[in-house]
């Protein structure tokens, strides 16, 4: 296994084991955050930087460090918020792991090195959207995205998660969503190319891709902009049904100049 590459199935099992040990009877565990050591160091205090969490009434519950193969470390942070109502689900019920047993879905590109940065497990509650935005902000900064590019990524992920909540789960508040953030890196023709890859998983019914399309922008009517915003903000947007899961893969390259160029047309001789 190359440095910087984490076997996701190992992570999945570790996450699963850890979650059960964190379970408390009187807490409703809404959110798990897993970060690599690389991210943790740059965040200074990861949970401290996530002001949105505290503003949303989350209480920091636990922090654990675990070793990964090749001496990598990840830090897991668990947050809880007291169950506020029936719609939030049954207290003490653990969130089922969404992607722990997912197939190896990431592209086996021989060129790109992929490194785990951060994973968020959350429920389909719109109040958690601000937490996702709050977590991605420092991450974009760390990856040296420009402010504008960082905002594009945050906007796309926010819209994608909102779409899952609205369409995949029909507004149900207690369904699981997982967001993985990976750093992509490769050397090509002596140039370094970097990108962020974001994978979103949910357990909703399969999406009929033939029935979804962004609405024409010249229509003056509310709604239907989410997909347009996602596509307009990211370099790659791919949907795939992976077993019983919906998987949305978003990629953004750090600099426009590093984006892969489309094949050039042959000039007529």
């Amino acid at each position: 296994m190359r440095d910087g590459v984490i076997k996701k199935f190992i992570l999945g099992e570790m996450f699963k084991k850890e979650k059960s040990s964190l379970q408390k009877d009187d807490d409703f565990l809404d959110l798990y955050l897993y970060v690599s050591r690389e991210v943790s160091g740059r965040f200074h205090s990861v949970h401290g930087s996530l002001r949105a969490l505290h503003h949303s009434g989350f209480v920091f519950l636990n922090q654990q460090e675990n070793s990964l193969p090749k001496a990598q470390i990840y830090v897991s942070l668990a947050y809880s918020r007291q169950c506020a109502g029936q719609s939030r689900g049954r207290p003490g019920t653990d969130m089922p792991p969404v992607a722990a047993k997912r197939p190896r879905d990431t592209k086996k590109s021989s060129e790109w090195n992929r490194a785990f940065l951060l994973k968020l497990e959350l429920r389909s509650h719109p109040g958690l959207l601000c937490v996702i935005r709050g977590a991605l902000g420092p991450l974009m900064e760390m990856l040296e995205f420009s402010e504008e590019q960082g905002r594009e990524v945050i906007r796309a992920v926010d819209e994608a998660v909102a779409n899952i909540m609205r369409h995949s789960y029909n507004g149900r508040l207690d369904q699981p969503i997982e967001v993985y953030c990976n750093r992509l890196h490769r050397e090509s023709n002596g140039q370094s190319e970097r990108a962020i890859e974001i994978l979103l998983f949910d357990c909703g019914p399969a999406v009929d891709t033939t029935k979804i399309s962004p609405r024409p922008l010249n229509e003056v009517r509310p709604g239907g902009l989410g997909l347009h915003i996602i596509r307009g903000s990211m370099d790659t947007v791919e949907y795939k049904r992976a077993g019983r899961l919906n998987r949305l893969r978003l990629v953004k390259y750090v600099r426009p100049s590093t984006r892969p160029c489309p094949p050039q047309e042959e000039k007529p001789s």
Partner: protein
Amino acid sequence: MKISARRVETTTILDVSGNIDMSNSTEVRKALLHEIRVQAVPRVILNLSGVNYIDSSGVASLVEGLKASRDLGSRLLLFGLNDAPRELFKISHLLKLFEVYDNETQAMASPARSA
């Protein structure tokens, strides 16, 4: 997110602060439609200078307000768009749909009734 209303002669200014997303965009929609439909104010100005993030559901609420104001012959104006909201308006092609001003003075100087 917080919304407060100010009345200046025949104009209502809605000051919004915080982030507008799926969790609270209905509040913006309600406040807008209340001023436009119930209060029948001829001109509603939305102060977004305190908003750093708005998502598509927030934009949808504004579009709904715009449609209602057009139907009733009133006006909906915006001012104080920060970077993220402005970018969203731009990629959604909404900058040319709304009357957007830099500040409150400019917005107040615009006509009270649509032509």
